[in-house]
C-alpha cells in the first residue's frame, strides 16, 4: 500500500491501511484503498454547458478481494456523493470504471443513485485491477479517486461454510459410527415401516394371481438421488421376486436408468441362484418425455393388469395419473417419493406410501443387514440434533426477546450461526 497522506481520512482507514500494509495476506484477502491521485481521462470531459450541474464525487472508495472464492470477484464499496439525497437529489447515478493492469479505464457498470456497493465478477487471477466510480449529474460526471491496484485472491477453504462442514462431519460420523457398531454385532432396534412390511405380501399376491409386478423408478435420470434410492430398493425387491419366480416388468423413461435397472435385476437373479430366469426384456425404455411415458405406462397397466405396482422415485404431476390407473386395475400399490408436493397424491391413491425419509431408508430396512440398519440409527442422531436445535432456538429467541436477556440472545445468535449456510 502506498504512503499517501492520510491525515484527512477517518481513523479506521488509517488503521485498515496499516493492517494491510504490514499484513497484506491477513484473512486471505487484500483491500485497496482509494489513492488521492488525480486522474484525467476522456470520460470525465465536462459538457460545455452554461447550466452544468457539477456534483460531488463519492468518497472512501474501497476495493477488496471477495472472500472465499476462486479468485474471480472483487467487492467495491463507497460512501455515496453528498449530493445523492432522497429529496431533490442532483445525482442521477454512478458509473464504475475499471483499469486492468494499468491499461485504459473501462466502464463496467452503471448504477442507480443511492448505490454504495458493486461486485465485479469478471476479474481473473494474476491481473491487477484498480477502480474509480464517477458520480453522474444530468450533464456532468465527477470521478472519484482511484483505488490502488489489487489482485483477486484464491482461497483454498471456504471458512464461511466451516459450520456446515463440521455439522456434516458430525452427522456423517454418527452414521458411520453406528454402521461400525452394528457390524461388530451389537443389536440395534429399528421400528417397523408399514409400507416395507407389505412388500413380501405384495409380491406373494402377484405370484398367487399369476400376474406381473410393475416397477416404476420415477421419471428422473440417474443424476437424482431419488432414482438411486429406487434402484437400491429394486435390488431388494427383485431378489424376493426371483425367489418367488414372479414376473417383473420395469418400463423406464431414461436410458441410463434402463442400463442400471438391468444390472440391478440381473444381479438379484444371480444372487437368488436363478440367472437363467433373467431377461433384458424385463426393463424397457419408452421415451424421455414425461407424459409420453405416462401414456405408455397407463396403457401397459390396463393391458397387463399387474397385481402389484411399485412407484418409487422422483415423480411430478404424473404421480396421480399413474397411481389412479394402477388402482383401477386392482393392483396393490406401494409408492414413495421425496417430493413433498406429490406425496399427498400417493397417500390418497396408493395402499402404502413411503414418506420422504422412509424412501431412502427402505433399502437398508429391506436388506435386514445389521450394518445397513446401523445407518438408520445414524440418521436418528441427526433428527435428535435438529429437534434439540429447534427446541432450544425457539425457547431462547422467545425468552431473549421477551425479557431482553443478553446471554440468552447470544445463545440464539450462536445457534442460528451454527445452522446458517452462508
Amino acid at each position: 500500500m502506498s504512503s499517501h497522506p492520510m491525515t484527512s481520512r477517518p481513523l479506521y482507514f488509517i488503521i485498515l491501511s496499516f493492517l494491510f500494509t504490514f499484513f497484506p495476506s491477513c484473512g486471505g484477502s487484500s483491500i485497496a484503498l482509494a489513492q488521492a491521485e488525480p486522474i484525467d481521462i476522456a470520460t470525465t470531459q465536462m459538457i460545455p454547458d452554461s447550466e452544468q450541474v457539477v456534483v460531488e464525487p463519492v468518497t472512501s472508495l474501497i476495493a477488496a478481494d471477495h472472500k472465499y472464492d476462486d479468485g474471480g470477484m472483487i467487492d467495491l464499496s463507497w460512501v455515496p456523493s453528498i449530493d445523492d439525497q432522497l429529496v431533490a437529489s442532483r445525482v442521477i447515478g454512478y458509473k464504475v470504471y475499471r483499469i486492468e493492469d494499468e491499461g485504459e479505464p473501462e466502464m463496467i457498470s452503471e448504477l442507480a443513485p443511492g448505490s454504495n456497493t458493486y461486485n465485479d465478477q469478471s476479474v481473473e487471477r494474476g491481473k491487477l485491477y484498480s477502480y474509480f466510480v464517477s458520480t453522474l449529474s444530468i450533464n456532468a460526471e465527477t470521478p472519484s479517486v482511484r483505488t490502488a491496484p489489487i489482485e483477486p485472491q484464491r482461497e483454498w477453504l471456504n471458512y464461511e461454510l466451516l459450520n456446515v462442514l463440521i455439522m456434516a462431519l458430525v452427522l456423517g460420523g454418527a452414521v458411520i459410527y453406528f454402521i461400525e457398531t452394528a457390524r461388530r454385532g451389537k443389536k440395534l432396534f429399528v421400528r417397523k415401516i408399514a409400507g416395507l412390511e407389505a412388500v413380501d405380501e405384495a409380491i406373494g399376491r402377484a405370484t398367487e394371481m399369476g400376474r406381473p409386478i410393475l416397477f416404476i423408478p420415477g421419471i428422473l435420470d440417474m443424476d437424482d438421488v431419488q432414482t438411486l434410492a429406487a434402484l437400491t430398493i429394486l435390488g431388494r425387491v427383485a431378489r424376493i421376486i426371483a425367489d418367488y419366480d414372479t414376473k417383473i416388468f420395469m418400463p423406464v423413461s431414461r436410458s441410463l436408468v434402463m442400463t442400471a435397472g438391468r444390472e440391478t435385476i440381473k444381479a438379484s437373479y444371480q444372487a437368488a441362484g436363478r440367472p437363467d430366469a433373467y431377461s433384458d426384456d424385463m426393463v424397457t425404455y419408452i421415451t424421455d418425455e414425461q407424459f409420453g411415458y405416462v401414456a405408455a405406462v397407463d396403457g401397459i397397466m390396463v393391458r397387463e393388469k399387474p397385481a402389484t405396482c411399485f412407484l418409487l422415485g422422483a415423480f411430478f404431476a404424473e404421480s396421480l395419473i399413474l397411481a389412479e390407473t394402477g388402482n383401477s386395475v386392482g393392483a396393490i400399490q406401494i409408492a414413495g417419493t421425496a417430493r413433498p408436493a406429490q406425496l399427498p397424491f400417493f397417500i390418497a391413491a396408493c395402499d402404502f406410501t413411503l414418506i420422504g425419509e422412509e424412501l431412502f431408508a427402505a433399502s437398508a430396512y429391506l436388506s435386514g443387514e445389521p450394518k445397513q440398519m446401523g445407518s438408520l440409527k445414524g440418521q436418528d442422531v441427526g433428527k435428535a440434533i435438529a429437534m434439540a436445535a429447534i427446541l432450544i432456538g425457539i425457547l431462547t429467541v422467545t425468552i431473549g426477546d421477551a425479557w431482553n436477556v443478553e446471554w440468552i440472545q447470544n445463545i440464539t445468535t450462536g445457534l442460528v450461526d451454527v445452522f446458517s449456510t452462508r
Partner: protein
Amino acid sequence: MKRQVPIIITFLIGMIMIFSFFIPPLEGLEQTCSLFFDVIAVFAFFLGGGNLMRIHVNKLRRRKKDWGFSIVTLGGFFIMLAAGLLKIGNPGGIAASPTTEGSLLQEIFTYVFLPLQSTMYALLAFFVASASYRAFRAKNREATILLIAAFVILLGRTPFGMLLTGWIPESFSVLQVPNMAIWIMNSPNLAGQRAIMIGIGLGVISMSLRLILGIERTYLGDESA
C-alpha cells in the same frame, strides 16, 4: 477388477464432490460433472433408442398382438429423427437450432406433441376427482384429519365457504372458512412440510454415505450384496 474398481470410483468421486462444496477452486466441478453426465446420457441413448426399436421391430416380425401400432411408433420415431437430424424445412438451414420456428420438427412439436401433452396433463383433473372420492373417507383418525383438512381448503376456494361462514363477525374473521384455509396452509401445513424436508435431508445423507462407502452396491450388479 470387475468388482473393486467401480466401488473405488464411486468412493473417490463421491468424496471429491462432497468436499468440493467447501473448496472454492473446485467450485466449477459440479458443472463439469453434470456436463460429463449429459455426454454419458447421450451415449446411453443409443442403448435406449436401440431398445425401443428392437422391441417394436420384434413385435412387428412376430406379428404380436397390436403390432400395427408398432408401425406407427416406429414411423413417428423415424420421422422425428429425420426431421431433426437433417433439419428438414428449417428456415435457418443446417446451422440453425433444430427447434427453429417453421422447421418440420417444430411444426410436429406444435401441432401433434403439444396437444397430446396438454391433454395427458389435463387427465389429472379427472383423477384428482376420482382419488378424492375414494381416498377422503373417515376410515380412521388419520384419514379423518386428512379429509377435514382437504375439505376446509376445498371449501375455502369456492364461494360456498364465504356463504356458510360469512355471518361470523369481523373480530372472529379467522373462523371464516376462507381464512381458516389460509391459516391451515400457513401453519400446520408449513410444519408438516418442514418435518418432511428435514427427514428427507437426513435420509439422503445416510443413503448417499452407504453408496459412497460401498455398503450398498446392488446397483453395480454385485451379487454378493
